[in-house]
């Protein structure tokens, strides 16, 4: 079954971002500006078209090309076809999701289908794409079985340009920054709820359920929520059945998504009064965070930020622990818009640009204290990185 809805709101090719889009809502305009930039890229590179695809999984670490270009977070596997004249079609599965998708989409046409392969082949024909001069983004995320069927239906697969869309969206728009700020507000309220709700006797999964639903009520459409406790943590993990107890250190990685923008805050909370040693070790993470923020200015390299953070731990004698499994990365980009600047690791030589948003987290296993967490979503500015949180991470205590 296929259902096609036409949205007569495409600006003329080559027009400015605002021309011809007056009837669109603000979100659609933002998305459409990305469509226009993608169209210009096709023209500049003498390409005929672009096929973007999404596997329907929402990875908080990844860019979702269909969302970036079409403005729709798809339920199932989906594709977006853009040609060099700027004409665009969004294809979503399942077919019944077409009305929601069309209402959100910035593409000219939206088609709901239960047969993505046949519909994509038909749409590629309608747009008259020469596949030898067409590029793809996200096809590599689809399952091999589906990709094989698409390849058979199209008789060839366009060459991969998986970096294109994440590069186009690497610096957030004002609207995306506002969404990140709102998401951070939600995350901080979620953490405040943890401080109110957590108590000895509660199971981890009960606490996680409360936080998840609480933040959903505040507008979080998704949440990569890790939350776990131990007297000596090796890492943060998803909530299990452990019963919270006095002396537990609760680790939380609170990652709500608001209007397609994930953010993350990382927090450490102790049930009962912590020993002085724990405060001393947590202060190392706070110091590392300060160093990272100072180093994270526009023009700096990601590697420099990483070294600034690691330097604090090395100076304190924990240089051997600045690698997995004692930590993972010092931060990372955030989906589903763009995951730039990528992982905050020493091998990443990418240059930070003003307006880039990512999470910086000097989370660290320390032998004397276990794994501790301290992290904020930050936006890159000219002088330094700015945390979006109103209240920076502290070692919080739940009184018993």
């Amino acid at each position, binding site marked *: 079954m296929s259902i096609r809805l036409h949205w007569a709101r495409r600006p003329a090719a080559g027009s400015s971002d605002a021309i011809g889009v007056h009837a669109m809502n603000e979100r659609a305009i933002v998305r459409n500006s990305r469509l226009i930039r993608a169209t210009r890229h096709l023209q500049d590179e003498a390409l005929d078209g672009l096929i973007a695809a999404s596997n329907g999984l929402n990875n908080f670490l990844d860019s979702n090309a269909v969302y970036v270009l079409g403005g729709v977070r798809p*339920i199932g596997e989906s594709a977006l076809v853009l040609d060099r004249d700027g004409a665009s079609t969004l294809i979503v599965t399942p*077919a*019944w999701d077409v009305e929601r998708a069309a209402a959100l989409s910035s593409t000219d046409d939206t088609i709901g289908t239960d047969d993505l392969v046949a519909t994509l082949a038909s749409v590629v024909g309608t747009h008259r794409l020469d596949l030898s001069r067409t590029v793809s983004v996200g096809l590599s995320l689809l399952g091999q079985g589906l990709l094989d069927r698409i390849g058979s239906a199209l008789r060839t697969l366009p060459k991969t340009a998986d970096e294109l869309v994440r590069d186009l969206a690497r610096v957030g728009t004002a609207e995306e920054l506002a969404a990140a700020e709102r998401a951070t507000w939600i995350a901080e309220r979620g953490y405040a709820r943890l401080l109110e709700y957590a108590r000895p006797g509660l*199971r981890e999964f009960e606490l996680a*359920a409360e936080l998840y*639903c609480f933040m959903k009520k505040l507008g979080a459409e998704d949440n990569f929520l890790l939350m776990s406790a131990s007297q000596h943590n*090796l890492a943060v993990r*998803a909530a299990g059945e452990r019963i919270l107890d006095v002396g537990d250190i609760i680790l939380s990685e609170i990652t709500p998504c608001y209007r397609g923008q994930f953010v993350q805050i990382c927090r450490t909370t102790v049930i009962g009064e912590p020993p002085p040693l724990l405060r001393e070790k947590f202060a190392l993470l706070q110091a590392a965070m300060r160093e990272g923020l100072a180093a994270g200015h526009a023009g700096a390299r990601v590697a420099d930020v990483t070294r600034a953070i690691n330097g604090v731990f090395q100076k304190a004698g924990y240089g051997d622990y600045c690698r997995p*499994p004692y930590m993972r990365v010092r931060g990372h980009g955030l989906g589903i818009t763009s995951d730039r600047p990528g992982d905050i690791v020493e091998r990443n030589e990418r240059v930070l640009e003003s307006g880039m948003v990512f999470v910086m987290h000097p989370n660290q296993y320390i032998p004397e204290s276990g794994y501790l967490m301290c992290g904020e979503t930050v936006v890159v500015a000219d002088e330094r990185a700015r945390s979006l949180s109103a209240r920076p991470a502290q070692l919080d205590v739940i009184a018993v």
Partner: protein
Amino acid sequence: MQTMQPSIMLGSYVWAQDRLPQDEFVLRLDDLRAAMARHAWQAVFVYGDAREHAGLAYLSNFIPRMRWGMALLPRAGEARLLCSMSTRDLPAMRTMTWISDVQSGWGPEWEKAFDPWVDRLKSERTVELGTFGFDLMAPALHEQVRRSLGDRFRLQRADDILAIPGSRKRPRELTMIRASCKVLEAAAKTFVESWRNSQEPESAALDAERVARSFAAQDVRTLISLDGGRTLVPYQGRFEKTAGPLVGYIAVKVLGYWADMLITVNDRSATPASRHAEAALDALVANVRPGARSGEIYANAIAALRPFTLHPVLGESVGHGIGLSLHEQPEFRAAGDSALVEDGVYALQVGIADAESGHVLLSAIVRNTANGAEVLARSPSLEAA
């Protein structure tokens, strides 16, 4: 019903050894080992991802909360489980499976974890291996597997040779499904009561989700209608009051097993559409028996709906199997010809979208027994509602 996939599955996925002890997995592996002997496979690789992992969960109890996992199950020797997680996360992953050898297969860890394991299987002749779920695998990983194996091994797609999990649910699986249905019914009750109090479908869905999660649901999915049941939408975050009936959907996963329900609550008197939908659901339930054909069941349900037609959100289907996957075979479609098996568990779904008579969506979960369908969960009655 297809729903929005969350970025991570939140509930507790620790292996519940009291409910699913190791001997259960020994029994589950018996069929697989017999197939390995028949096809001369020296090992099978069972792949699953966060969305679809029934085979992987059935054999290993491991459910990837995000990205993917793959069990390497040899005909003789120790199994290994690869997961797409950092080495930092391995201690937590090891609590989710009976397989003691759990390794990271993520990024540069792949070659360290996969290559040495398959090297044990090397022989002078080409080694045959079976694969499950490889259609779901991303092409880059597919290529990595092939590169690691080189020409010493030959992969054979096993999905069409052996159904894993099988259609007939094992006794412990039925216990899990009953537990899931119990949580589902509690959540559905809250869905309805909350809507009655607030008239806000999204608030009602969220309240239902909260109840399910408080009962240790590992995953909860909801859809609601904002237009009286004509269409369904995932979470929008609006929490607005809406006029008209409550039409929604909820699915819960408990101990790995799904149960789901379509809900229609109309506080007006029953309409012709709702009466026909109830009759069609009754017909569906009545037609479930060992040996019944899926297409025949579809035809009987469609006949009971007349003069109305099937609601478009059901995608020309009136049900399917359910268990470790929200959507298992067989599918009850016009062209379906699968025979229903005893101890099969099925989600039966009917609905009508009619501008004049109203929109209705109803469902039931049944176990197929020698004496007909045992209803494990059913939408609240329209009249009682």
